[in-house]
């Protein structure tokens, strides 16, 4: 991928970023971090993020995190980046007595965790911990891999332990600089003189890559990430043209150039397994296009892996819009892959928000090209991700029932919907946190929470919490809505109400509001207050409180009273 130069990023700092969402980020390091902070600020312009950066002085990690009155805590960062460099790690290793070196990684891990702990107590920021780019002193040669007392052994172990610790600390994200270095090569990352002269652990021309990697995680944790890949078929998923070459003629599997396409499909299948929706958009007759998915013995992807399958002779931009409206996700969360540069350009110009990577000409390079773009960074993973494709397919069947019903009420009645409403429980923390991060459209206040924060809210008596599930005769939507009610002196305040757009206009909104009011009444509250906080994406819920029986106190605040509230009609039964 073509990266802007560090000097170009520095120039970005002077550009107008006032239209971008703000993000307060503090950089703490055991090395010089000024250039890292500058690169990050400049990358913000490339990524559409306005970083407000606190760059603390050299080697201030302990000082800034131990002092409750420090600049760090006064800054109220959204994110704290911890830059611990391999050079300092090696110095610490060299100072470590021989008898303790086999435990060096564990000791360092404990030290880093102590820093996380302090920051966690000092402020609510999320942490981005850089891991350690591998550096082998070759003191033992390759044999060092068998020697727990060697530096490379301990460094690898430490990176592993960091991953393990990050898994246990939901607020901490590991930025994999070691992985980045292994893709680029050590020579493109390190320059010994930069560390000697300026205590800079990286080359300046590496900094744009570093800034991108950090920003990818920041964006994902802030709710901006890809959910769907729309695929062309001929010469993208297989070699050749199915309409001309037929089932025996297309290249897939062991035959000829087929292996490259199989490898690509395998990679897409892995994306699908982790919850990325795969859709097809192809200029073909539908039956012809579906045939390989149904009958070709060497296809990796099958029809059940595809959420929405569109094959016709209309233009691709219109078809992509159709797919988007069925899935009900933002265009900016979609990626379009097509081998044909003309199709790519046409889609790009008609749908500016969709991501359309330039695929290389050679199919064997598709995977490496897409890997290098890191399009699928995420900040969460839950059980629901695995079954998402099936849910969207059920959605397509519901659409077909709806087209057969005389009116919408009859359709809703025919769905036989059943909902659950329960307080947050441990099992559902990951999914609830994920929803707070993912939901942009049906989200009244767009407060993002990590799993840890959700756990804290669930355990606090300042809050009442409700999650909602919905199922119908076609399938189970799973957990599709979360509500956090804050107990204020004279009223219950709706801190969070979000809902998956999959279940929009089924009567779920009505069901939820009824439940909020009955929960309030049961807890002894007469007044419930809701707030609408406008974002670029949540206009659809601007008037929802009024529509469902609240009274506007002003443009953004709405009140309902439990003693005069008439429940909204809904076809959903509570389980």
């Amino acid at each position, binding site marked *: 991928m073509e990266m802007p*130069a560090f000097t170009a990023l520095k*120039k970005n700092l002077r550009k107008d970023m006032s239209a971008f969402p703000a993000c307060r980020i503090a950089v703490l390091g055991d090395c010089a971090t*000024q*250039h890292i902070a500058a690169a990050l600020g400049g990358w913000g312009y490339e990524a559409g993020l306005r970083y407000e950066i606190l760059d603390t002085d050299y080697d201030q990690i302990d000082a800034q995190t131990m002092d409750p009155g420090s600049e760090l805590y006064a800054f109220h960062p959204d994110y704290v980046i911890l830059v611990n460099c391999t050079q300092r790690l090696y110095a610490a290793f060299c100072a470590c007595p021989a008898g303790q070196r086999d435990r060096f990684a564990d000791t360092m891990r404990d030290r880093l965790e102590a820093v996380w702990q302090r920051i966690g107590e000092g402020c609510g920021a999320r942490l981005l911990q850089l891991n350690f780019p591998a550096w082998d002193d070759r003191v033992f040669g390759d044999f060092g891999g068998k020697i727990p007392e060697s530096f490379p052994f301990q460094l690898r172990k430490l990176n592993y332990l960091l991953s393990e610790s990050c898994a246990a600390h939901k607020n901490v994200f590991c930025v994999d600089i070691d992985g980045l270095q292994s893709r680029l090569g050590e020579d493109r990352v390190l320059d010994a003189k930069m560390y000697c*002269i*300026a205590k800079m652990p990286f080359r*300046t021309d590496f900094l744009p890559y570093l800034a991108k990697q950090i920003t990818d995680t920041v964006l994902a944790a802030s709710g901006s990430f890809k959910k769907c890949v729309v695929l062309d078929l001929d010469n993208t998923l297989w070699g050749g043209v199915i309409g001309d070459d037929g089932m025996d003629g297309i290249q897939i599997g062991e035959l000829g150039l087929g292996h490259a396409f199989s490898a690509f499909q395998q990679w897409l299948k892995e994306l699908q397994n982790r919850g990325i929706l795969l859709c097809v958009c192809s200029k073909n007759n539908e039956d012809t296009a579906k045939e390989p998915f149904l009958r070709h013995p060497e296809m990796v992807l099958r029809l059940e892996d595809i959420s929405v399958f569109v094959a016709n002779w209309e233009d691709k931009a219109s078809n992509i819009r159709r797919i988007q409206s069925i899935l009900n996700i933002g265009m900016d969360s979609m990626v379009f892959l097509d081998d044909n540069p003309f199709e790519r350009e046409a889609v790009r110009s008609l749908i500016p928000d969709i991501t359309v990577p330039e695929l290389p000409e050679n199919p064997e390079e598709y995977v490496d090209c897409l890997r290098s773009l890191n399009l699928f960074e995420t900040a969460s993973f839950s059980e629901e991700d695995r079954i998402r494709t099936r849910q969207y397919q059920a959605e397509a069947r519901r659409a077909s029932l709806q087209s057969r019903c005389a009116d919408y009420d009859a359709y809703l009645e025919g769905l036989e919907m059943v909902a659950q409403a329960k307080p947050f429980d441990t099992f559902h923390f990951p999914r609830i946190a994920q929803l707070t991060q993912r939901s942009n459209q049906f989200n009244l206040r767009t407060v993002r929470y990590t799993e840890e924060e959700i756990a804290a809210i669930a355990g606090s008596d300042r809050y009442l919490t409700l999650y909602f599930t919905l199922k119908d005769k076609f399938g189970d939507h799973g957990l599709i809505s979360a509500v956090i009610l804050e107990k204020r002196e004279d009223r219950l305040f709706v801190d969070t109400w979000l809902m998956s757009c999959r279940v929009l206009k089924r009567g779920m909104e009505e069901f939820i509001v009824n439940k909020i009011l009955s929960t309030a009444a049961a807890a002894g509250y007469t007044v419930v207050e809701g707030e609408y906080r406008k974002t670029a994406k949540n206009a659809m819920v601007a008037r929802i409180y009024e529509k469902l029986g609240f009274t506007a106190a002003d443009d953004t605040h709405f009140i309902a009273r439990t003693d005069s509230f008439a429940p909204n009609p809904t076809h959903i039964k509570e389980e």
Partner: protein
Amino acid sequence: MNNNEIYERLNSIFQDVFDDSSLTVNPDTTAADIEDWDSLTHITLVGAVEEEFRMKFSMKEVVEMKNVGEMAQIVAARRKR
């Protein structure tokens, strides 16, 4: 090796790094002549020159270079493009 070409390219790097399109450098230009030329910017400058000419300075050179002329001499001797 064309010295003029090296100076032209160095000049545009300096303009870039110091974000000043009116800047021109000559062999005698030193850090004292350019207001923002501090130790931090020096590192940025060295990195940008290395990237442009696909070459590396030694630590000693980075620390001891006295003016743009010395920088250009090293570039002329070592550049790969």
